[in-house]
């Protein structure tokens, strides 16, 4: 493991790839790797790309990666696709749209299956971002699974979150719903050459204007954090709505400009630190949760778990009582 960690930090692709596999498959390996690499992380600009299936996320990632390469920055890409809830298998097809990036040593692409994790990412995604960060990729693009309305985990891991929409996906009431649109630092209307794109842009802009004002917290602060993190004063970032046509590269340079502006804004307004703190809080909570669950699994016999679940199914016990009984086993 030590060799792998050292070679990964040197940016050796084979070592990075093997390390990612180990971290993906084993909680112990993830712990060892993150513990060793954490002091070397914190340099990368992590950019999340989310939106509904078919909006053009992979194609946009392809274009963004090319644009950052023209700026002489190396790019790490993590592309997450869903695992089957029935067989655990997955078809990871994001590379199909990223063929332009082949042969460039300054780009590392890794496809990941969500492996039953909800929220649009895989459980190991946070650890893998750290591997790429420690391998000194200044830009890390994280593409989520095709997201519906509530897959908002990416906002707690990325510094800049792009939400990709496409024309014709619903009327303007869709844009008023809570959830994914709220996490956008930049809203992208891709396939802007299609009919209806202007209307989609207009309704997104209207949604943003109606919510404008100092009382409205936005971008990336989820309710749990909003309560505890100090609200950043002079929260002046106005979420832009940008049209792109990723298949021919139109609008990409404006989008890269907006991403860079957002980074400068975060750093100048101390929102960067606030985001890091929110991310750290969420990560610690998540790891604690996973550990408690593991603890529960080892300290409570399967028979007892089964008995309680059977009792709940038979309406002999309510689910709260069952949980209280289980919890008593680990916190007597």
């Amino acid at each position, binding site marked *: 493991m030590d060799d792998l960690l050292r070679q990964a930090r040197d940016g050796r692709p084979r070592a990075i790839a093997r390390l990612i596999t180990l971290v993906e498959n084993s909680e112990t390996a993830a712990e060892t790797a993150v513990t060793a690499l954490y002091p070397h992380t914190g340099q990368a600009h992590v950019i999340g790309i989310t939106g509904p299936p078919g909006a053009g996320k992979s194609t946009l990632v392809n274009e963004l990666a090319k644009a950052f390469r023209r700026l002489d920055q190396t790019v790490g890409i993590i592309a997450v696709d869903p695992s089957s809830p029935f067989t655990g298998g997955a078809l990871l097809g994001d*590379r199909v749209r990223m063929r332009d990036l082949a*042969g460039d040593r300054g780009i590392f692409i890794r496809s990941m299956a969500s492996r039953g994790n909800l929220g649009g990412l895989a459980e190991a995604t946070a650890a893998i971002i750290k591997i790429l960060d420690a391998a000194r990729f200044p830009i890390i693009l994280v593409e989520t699974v095709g997201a519906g309305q509530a897959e908002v985990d990416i906002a707690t891991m990325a510094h800049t979150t792009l939400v990709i929409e496409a024309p014709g996906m619903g009327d303007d009431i869709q844009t008023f719903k809570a959830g994914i649109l709220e996490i956008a630092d930049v809203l992208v209307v891709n396939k802007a050459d299609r009919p209806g794109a202007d209307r989609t842009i207009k309704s997104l802009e209207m949604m943003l204007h109606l919510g404008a004002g100092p009382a409205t917290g936005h971008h990336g602060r989820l309710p749990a954090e909003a309560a505890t993190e100090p609200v950043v004063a002079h929260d002046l970032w106005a979420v832009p709505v940008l049209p792109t046509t990723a298949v021919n590269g139109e609008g990409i340079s404006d989008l890269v400009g907006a991403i860079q502006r957002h980074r400068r804004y975060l750093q100048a307004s101390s929102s960067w630190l606030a985001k890091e703190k929110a991310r750290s809080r969420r990560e610690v909570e998540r790891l604690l949760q996973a550990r408690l669950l593991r603890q529960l699994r080892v300290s409570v016999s399967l028979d007892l778990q089964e008995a309680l679940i059977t009792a709940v199914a038979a309406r002999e016990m309510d689910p709260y009582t069952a949980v209280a009984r289980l919890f008593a086993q680990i916190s007597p």
Partner: protein
Amino acid sequence: MIEEHTPRVLIAKPGLDGHDRGAKVVARALRDAGMEIIYTGLRQTPEMIVEAALQEDVDAIGLSILSGAHLPLTERVLALLRENDMADVPLFLGGIIPADDLPVLKDMGVAAVFGPGSSTDEIVRFVREALQRG
């Protein structure tokens, strides 16, 4: 997170033919067998395939070739795998491969060839066994 290795298999189509139905059928069958399939799409060069295999750290590689160029394409992929210290990753082929070429491919180091009429069960079984050996 469970401590177990989920098999990862690259399914790629090298060369210039545009018939990807076979590759998709195999990808789907392996997916349904609980594996993670990295699907690269059409017209991949051997360089692109080996780069993807390396970054994705796959346990096996399946190539679908119907163009007739299976000998040079396979030879190049195997050479690149050796160059990248990945000679231990089993490579299997599907597509239209004349019987005369089968011994040549075996000698090169191809683990298996599945011609027309092969059942997906057979392919799934082969991949599982290849992974257990590896």
